């Protein structure tokens, strides 16, 4: 049967199923292939914190959303147009987000009595008219998967595990994407289990063929490739970009990398990644707890390694005391905090921006630490590189904030060449003449004199030290001097970072100021508001401490400042107290990224109109 091929400029789709259904894998395969055919894209994995929640339950649903386009993409999309629902629970929890008239591909085999009950459906939504207003495509995915595998020796359990590839194959067909990249991936991934690779290949192709022959679907869609800048690309998640950025920085600095860490969602992946890079002279140490994670890193930094520790909110809280130790010993260290929902254990797998105040202020004593934030998945690479540069140049701990949204989400990244990356200078002290452990260079950094260097034997530690000489000192004036000196050292980094840039309408009345992982959403909402005739400016902070030198000047240009944050106004609080400017806050703390439409509506409201839609 000839199918109509419709052209779309952008599509948002969501895969949803049980956490054991392999939805994250399905989503990331679809993303990789979509990137491969040249679309720009942005992804949003969303999964429960239970590893295998009981099958069929509402709280066990795992989802993966992505938006792809022939134009540039800033967000994973507000509302999906297509939903792939592997069971009733997945349908129930996701259908409310779907665009009206959207398409739902449903695994109808999973809509039995038991699953319907687990999902709290009184009647079968496939049989009543609750899904009116959507294009529903019921497909017996489990049966068709079993059919495709009837000649293999797989156990029924193994067969059942392949069904996500049927859904993937069908979705590939629906959006006119090739199956080959996934087939290649399968054979590489399961090179030691060829029967599994072949089974999944069979099912993938069966899904794609089903699209070709079924009477249920008459239209397929095409999204032309985006006009991306020339170059070589790969699809990268924030945690991957962070991992590569750390290795790159150590490589450029020319010293061994030491990562002392403790597994914690959603940061664990970085420790896992780095443990594979041993041939880059990367030392990974999975410590007994968060505190040993950072204190081992401090020890390694004293020993002359480029030290990192990775964590998330609760872990950062545990590292607090040690951060102060790194401040007073003035040793280079980069702490990467992949923020998640708090307080306490909070929402471990969900995103939030609520550790900003903890990062900037959360320590005993006056303990200034530079704080940076990455704004998109690929930006994690550049920001961890930058955090490293600052840590080494100023002999200071640095905190880099990312979040679960950009850490797990992915986007195409135009790869930089190794030789294009800026150099990172490391100078160990070797000269014994006039060596004092707390002497200062022009940046107020003290010398890095590592054990093993003859003639530089000295002692450092958590007690206050005398200026220049570094002996234990309880002298009141010395303490006052050292407190101010440490503060000045960090404050002066403002001279060494880029100024805050204004985008959009420079002469607008309203500026939207964001920080961290909300960049894509804010950019998208500002773009839409401007399209609707509003004049709006935008600025995005990547340096939170110190702030860029011109921050105050920028903000004071505008009558209104809007600060959207996935917290209760932590940046707003800093901005108000630093510059005494009035700001309007927009805060939602749902464990999810903003929707562009939410900020867009807020902008319209502030500019006295409706949002034009």
């Amino acid at each position: 049967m000839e199918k109509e091929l419709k052209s779309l400029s952008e599509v948002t789709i969501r895969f949803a199923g049980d956490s054991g259904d392999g939805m994250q894998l399905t989503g990331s395969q679809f993303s990789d292939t979509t990137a491969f055919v040249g679309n720009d894209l942005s992804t949003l994995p969303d999964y429960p914190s239970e590893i295998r929640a009981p099958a069929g339950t509402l709280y066990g649903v795992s989802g993966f959303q992505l938006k792809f386009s022939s134009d540039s993409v800033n967000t994973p999309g507000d509302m999906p147009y297509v939903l792939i629902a592997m069971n009733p629970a997945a349908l129930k929890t996701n259908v409310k987000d779907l665009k009206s008239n959207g398409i739902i591909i449903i695994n109808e085999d999973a809509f039995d009595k038991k699953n319907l009950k687990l999902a709290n459906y009184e009647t079968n939504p496939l049989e009543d008219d609750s899904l009116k207003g959507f294009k529903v495509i019921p497909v017996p995915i489990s049966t068709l998967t079993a059919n495709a595998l009837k000649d293999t020796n797989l156990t029924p359990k193994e067969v059942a595990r392949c069904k996500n590839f049927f859904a993937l194959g069908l979705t590939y067909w629906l959006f006119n994407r090739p199956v080959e990249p996934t087939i290649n991936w399968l054979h590489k991934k399961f090179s030691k289990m060829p029967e599994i690779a072949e089974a999944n290949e069979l099912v993938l192709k069966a899904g794609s063929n089903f699209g070709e022959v079924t009477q249920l679907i008459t239209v397929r869609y095409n999204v032309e490739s985006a006009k991306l800048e020339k170059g070589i690309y790969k699809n990268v998640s924030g945690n991957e970009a962070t991992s590569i950025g750390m290795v790159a920085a150590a490589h450029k600095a020319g010293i061994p990398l030491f990562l002392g860490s403790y597994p914690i969602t959603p940061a664990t992946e970085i420790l896992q990644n780095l443990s594979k890079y041993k041939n880059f002279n990367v030392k990974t140490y999975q410590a007994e707890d968060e505190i040993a994670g950072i204190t081992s890193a401090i020890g390694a930094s004293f020993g002359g390694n480029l030290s990192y520790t990775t964590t998330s909110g609760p872990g950062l809280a545990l590292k607090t005391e040690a951060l102060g130790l790194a401040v007073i010993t003035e040793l280079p260290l980069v702490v990467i905090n992949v923020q998640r929902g708090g307080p306490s254990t909070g929402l471990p797998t969900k995103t939030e921006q609520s550790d900003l105040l903890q990062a900037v202020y959360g320590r005993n004593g006056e303990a200034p630490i530079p704080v940076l934030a990455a704004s998109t998945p690929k930006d994690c690479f550049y920001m961890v590189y930058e955090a490293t540069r600052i840590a080494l140049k100023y002999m200071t701990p640095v905190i880099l904030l990312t979040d679960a949204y950009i850490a797990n989400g992915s986007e195409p990244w135009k790869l930089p060449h190794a030789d294009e990356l800026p150099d990172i200078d490391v100078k160990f002290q070797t000269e014994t003449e006039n060596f004092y452990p707390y002497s200062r260079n022009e940046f107020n950094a003290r010398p890095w004199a590592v054990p093993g260097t003859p003639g530089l034997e000295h002692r450092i530690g958590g007690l206050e030290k005398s200026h220049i000489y570094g002996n234990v000192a309880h002298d009141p004036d010395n303490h006052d001097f050292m407190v101010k000196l440490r503060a000045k050292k960090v404050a002066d980094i403002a001279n060494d970072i880029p100024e805050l840039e204004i985008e959009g309408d420079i002469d607008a009345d309203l500026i939207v100021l964001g920080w961290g992982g909300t960049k894509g959403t804010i950019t998208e909402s500002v773009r839409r508001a401007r399209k609707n005739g509003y004049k709006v400016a935008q600025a995005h902070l990547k340096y939170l401490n110190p702030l860029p030198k011109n921050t105050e000047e920028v903000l004071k240009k505008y009558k209104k400042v809007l600060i959207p944050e996935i917290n209760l106004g932590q940046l707003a609080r800093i901005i108000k107290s630093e510059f005494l400017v009035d700001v309007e806050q927009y805060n939602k703390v749902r464990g999810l990224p903003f929707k562009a439409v939410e900020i867009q509506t807020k902008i319209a409201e502030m500019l006295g109109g409706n949002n034009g839609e």
Partner: protein
Amino acid sequence: MENKTIDQEVKLKPKDFASDQDVRWCPGCGDYSILSQAQKVMPEIGVPKEKIVWVSGIGCSSRFPYYMSTYGFHGIHGRAPAIATGLKLSNPELSVWVATGDGDLMSIGGNHFIHTCRKNIDLNILMFNNEIYGLTKGQYSPTSERGKVTKTTPYGSIDTPFNPISLALGSKATFIARSIDRNPKHLKEVLTKANAHKGTSFIEIYQNCIIFNDGAFDDLSNKETKEDNVLEMKHGEPLVFGKDNNKGIKLDGFTPKVVDLTTGEYSLDDLWVHDEFDESQNRAYILSQFHDNPNLPVPIGVFRQVNSPTLNEELEKQIKFQIEKKGKGNLESLLFSGNTWEVE
């Protein structure tokens, strides 16, 4: 800094390991003796001074690094083993020593202690055990005995104390020893042995806190009582103690018994012969429990030492092996690895 023109060919003396800082422990504190023995051992271990690092936590004992003229790091409460671990992994050529106390290591640092032991990182951990909190002025510690009256236990401690040697054994430490501040000769010997051992060496050193727990170890150090209360373990020799070695330890099944060697009923041949290299932990464990039994003497010396791969060596090995296998990491290929595509 002090003494920059050290010629390593010239043999250093103990005083070359003293820093220019005034030592600020209370006069008569047992820490002085430990410091002095450590300074005596340093020139003899065959490691150049710049490769020696002392790391500490918080407490009276933890001021130690400031008084040594080597590299030093005064950490935060309980974390010395973790700091020392990172340091050793960053540069395995360093000789890393940890000075800590019973509060620092057994209480707030307990977790780091047990994991450092099991990971067998090549460190020497000296735990100054004075069975009290000194720096915070006299509260009971995790090694204080039940019933002890201190500022926070005015009606007597109701806690069961740790037995640090048993704990170290249970944590799979590969070198476990005990010594006493007032027995400098013995202390120096034990420190020398600990240094020679590859892996985590744990030494419990009974240390008299003259201010808050004076006399805690008097029966182990006073002339009149020490012979009857201290059992000096020597490898390959029968366990004897008392005046003129008139008593010995005999093992009846799992039960150690004190026997009199003067009556003719028992001879040296009946006694338990100490084997510090015993592969099994069982006998060392029985010895560690002597401390808790008032009818038995307190053993000093090496309870057990065995060879086992160290974490620092294993990590170096893995790195070397991966470099041999995959070639030295190439940043350009790392960047361009995975599913890439070209936009023309």
